[in-house]
């Protein structure tokens, strides 16, 4: 069996990354820019996949990259590079300054005001060195244990796409010409299993389960992950189509996060200012039932969506997006806030190049009081969705049509599996028709939702 001693990591840079980012900003300003912003990202990754007990892949690497955005008055452009040599950095800055000549004057362009910049203080518990603390052999063992637990769970689990263990760390530095400089590190580890079950007639089903955490201490035991993966896979065996009908549809917590994605896209300032969202112009209006409250909070200690400042150097915060069904706030970066005559919500996301986008922090639907079982027990005939296929959502019109699979609800209980069906409706109605919200809110990523029940959707099948 191979073993791996971790010695990835980037060779030590001669220049401190904070110094480097500030230096790039200075070079851009010296070159004539009226404002500039530089981002440096550095990361390491490890991943291993074990399939049918044998190591299938083992991957280790580190990388870093740098990007700069410059303004000449109200014209902007950006460049990026993975070449950190002095000539490479010079070329990057020069190209950005050149490129800015061909863009248009945009009266709303610019970096945030000095007064808006800042960073949360205190330990946000985002970085834990222990994600890399396991020796190589033990990491492989994590992946193997997860897969084995799934394979051993039931004789109908006959094959597998494997068990995996991943770890990664990342560091981000941001500096701009208003004197902001900040940095943070984040760590991540995960364990997953993807078993395949087979019926006697050969029909196969696959499902998965995983655990993800910022520290190894909070990662679920691989056996637990493998067992849940097996249960999720087995319950799909023997799936059939359903009849076309309008019935209550229950979204399990994993698929319910997709509804939050759609709300996010609807309140994303970029879609709002251009009227490309069905929620544009609805601030202060009722857009969902009284039971619906949606929060975006980038400040939760240890959260998957937490950071001390956003992609433009604005401190993150807690924003109530929907309160008791009323749209309270859009999610905005500096540009979209200016376009709408509002204030940034500290939601800027920034890649290496291009203009900043908008991203969520820890973004969730507030839990209700019923258990998921109680919620289901109230449904005579309905669909419990455990997986969506495809992306059939039109944010301009709200039209919604997706492939689905899950379990049929009969007499208040989950009965047989169903597949090759569609779920369709319109998001404008859907938000009002979230008739029940369960109490099982749990973060498995930066977006989280409890189990929800939605009425009025059309299930398409036979």
């Amino acid at each position, binding site marked *: 069996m191979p073993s791996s001693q971790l010695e990835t990591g980037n060779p030590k840079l001669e220049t401190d990354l904070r110094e480097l980012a500030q230096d790039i900003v200075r070079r851009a300003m010296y070159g004539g820019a009226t404002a500039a912003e530089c981002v440096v990202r550095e990361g390491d990754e490890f991943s291993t996949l074990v399939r049918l007990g044998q190591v299938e892949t083992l991957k280790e690497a580190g990388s870093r990259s740098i990007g700069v955005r410059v303004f000449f008055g109200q014209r902007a452009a950006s460049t990026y590079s993975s070449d950190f040599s002095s000539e490479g950095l010079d070329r990057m800055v020069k190209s950005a300054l050149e490129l800015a000549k061909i863009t248009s004057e945009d009266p709303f362009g610019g970096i945030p005001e000095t007064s808006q910049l800042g960073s949360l203080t205190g330990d946000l518990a985002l970085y834990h060195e222990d994600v890399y603390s396991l020796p190589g052999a033990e990491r492989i063992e994590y992946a193997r244990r997860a897969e084995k637990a799934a394979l051993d769970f039931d004789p109908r689990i006959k094959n597998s796409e494997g068990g995996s263990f991943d770890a990664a760390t990342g560091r981000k530095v941001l500096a701009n010409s208003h004197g902001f400089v900040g940095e943070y590190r984040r760590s991540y580890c995960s364990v997953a299993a993807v078993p395949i079950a087979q019926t006697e007639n050969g029909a196969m089903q696959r499902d998965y389960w995983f655990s993800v955490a910022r520290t190894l201490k909070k990662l679920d035991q691989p056996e637990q992950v493998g067992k849940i993966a097996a249960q999720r896979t087995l319950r799909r065996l023997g799936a059939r189509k359903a009849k076309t009908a309008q019935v209550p549809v229950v979204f399990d917590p994993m698929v319910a996060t997709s509804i939050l994605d759609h709300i996010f896209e609807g309140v994303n300032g970029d879609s709002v200012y251009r009227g490309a969202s069905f929620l544009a112009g609805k601030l202060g209006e009722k857009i969902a039932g009284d039971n619906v409250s949606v929060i975006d909070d980038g400040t939760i200690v240890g959260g998957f969506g937490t950071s001390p400042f956003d992609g433009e150097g604005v401190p993150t915060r807690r924003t109530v997006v929907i309160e008791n069904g009323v749209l309270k706030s859009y999610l905005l970066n500096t540009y979209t806030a200016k376009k709408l005559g509002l204030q940034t919500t500290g939601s800027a996301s920034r890649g290496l190049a291009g203009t900043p986008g908008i991203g969520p922090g820890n973004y969730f639907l507030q839990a209700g009081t019923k258990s998921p079982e109680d919620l289901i027990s109230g449904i005579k005939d309905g669909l419990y969705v455990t997986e969506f296929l495809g992306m059939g959502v039109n944010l301009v019109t709200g039209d919604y049509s*997706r492939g689905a699979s899950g379990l049929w609800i009969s007499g208040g209980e989950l009965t047989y599996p169903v597949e090759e069906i569609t779920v*369709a409706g319109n998001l404008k109605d859907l938000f009002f028709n979230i008739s029940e919200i369960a109490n099982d809110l749990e973060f498995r990523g930066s977006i989280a939702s409890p189990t929800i029940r939605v009425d009025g959707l059309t299930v398409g099948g036979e």
Partner: protein
Amino acid sequence: MTSDHRHISAVDVFALSCRPPGLVWDNEATAQMSLPAARRHLIDVDRQRFFFDHYGLAERDLERYLAAALSAGGDYADLYFEYLSSTALMVDESMVKSASQGISAGCGVRVVSGERTGYAYTDDLSSDRILHAARTAALIASAPAKTPVAGFRQKPARSLYPVTLPSVDAEITAKVELVTRADKAARAYDPRIKEVRASYADELRNILVIGSDGTFAEDSQPLARMNVGCIAKTESNSARGNSGGGGRVALDFFFGDKNPEFFAKEAARQAILQLDAREAPAGEMEVVLGPGWPGVLLHEAVGHGLEADFNRKKTSAFAGLIGKRVASEGCTVIDNGTMPWRRGSLNVDDEGAPTQETVLIEKGILKGYLSDKLSARLMGIADTGNGRRESYEHIPMPRMTNTYMLAGQDNPEDIIRSVKHGIYAVNFGGGQVDITNGKFVFSASEAYMIEGGQITAPIKGATLIGNGPDVLTRVSMVGNDLKLDEGVGTCGKDGQAVPVGVGIPTIKIDRLTVGGTAKKDPGGFMQ
């Protein structure tokens, strides 16, 4: 690894997602494209020496790296050098709001031992870092060192696309002209077009692949694309339309037939059309697919399921079906990486193997899989040159190139006339497939009702869902009008995105589930 869904999508400049990948929607292929035979001619071996010139690589260094990769044994090792330069421009609200350029370079080292793969990469192309990556990847094996084959052999390669240079400043002006012209043309189409975003993006990828079996391949791969997205608004309604295209082409491509006005008008036409769309029906019915981009059906329903890795592991619903009937007599499906300038084409794949034309389904019978080096060796089948990867940071795996169905005999009008009650879908967003149970979806963005053999009203976007191993057995008519898409497809598998092409003639599927919202048909269609 959290989910193994595969999907294809075309970028929607209006669909902003909080997480990659962005959502979908695109493209009608209106231009008639023939399927030309690959032009084959030899390139001068010394013409492309990119990494030797830019990074001072010498053949001696390459041998040293491979020796380090095989220092703990292993069956095979390779190195993939990549230097990618890209440019992107966008006009929005009639302003050139963003312009960006960037460079990314690195080297990935792979060591294969039996079914095991060790992988490491570096974005620092110094000898030290490459050797370090090679020794890290070598940890997968645990045997005495092996010696790479002495001397590299470069096979004669095709030249399917122009050798372009990284974007120079003079060209930037022309690119700005493209996006601003698209903006004007879309707004001029109809006063109800209120929002337009037009983007242009290109890249040039220089690669060098060397393998311990003597593989030596260099290529210079251009890729360019335009996209136009429009929103039409009336007092009561909004709708969107998207269009785009390109391929492995130089800038002059967009100053020919496929100019900014062509894409702009198409996006605007779709947005205006959708203003009056009525609810789509729900349930099983006859479905006619128009030619071109609706070929995304093939990509999802059969293409992914025929990638050799899934079949080697027996995780595909198609495993063990070679020689069996999986489609009706009229269906012949091809994957072809050798079509000049196409988005999915490659002179050599990302393992340095020449691409080829591979018959997947011949007259309804399953013929073969798409393979890479690893699957070919482990399964004892030929390498079809389908080993692809997103970048130097990724392990190659079997992927599609351009996937299409050959034309049949039927007249497209006759196909429509034969349908009593169904839908005619001509444009799609993306699709997705679960290769294990075979269920796939693809989402129509432009579709019409067919009632009594006549195309009637446009309907709202709807997802179509089916079962890969049997959907093609229900293809009862195949048109004589094969088209390829305009060059917008990006395929995702295990988190790796690669450009692909699809194509199909007009076809009729006797029964497929349509995911609309309209109440079950009240019997109100005309006959």
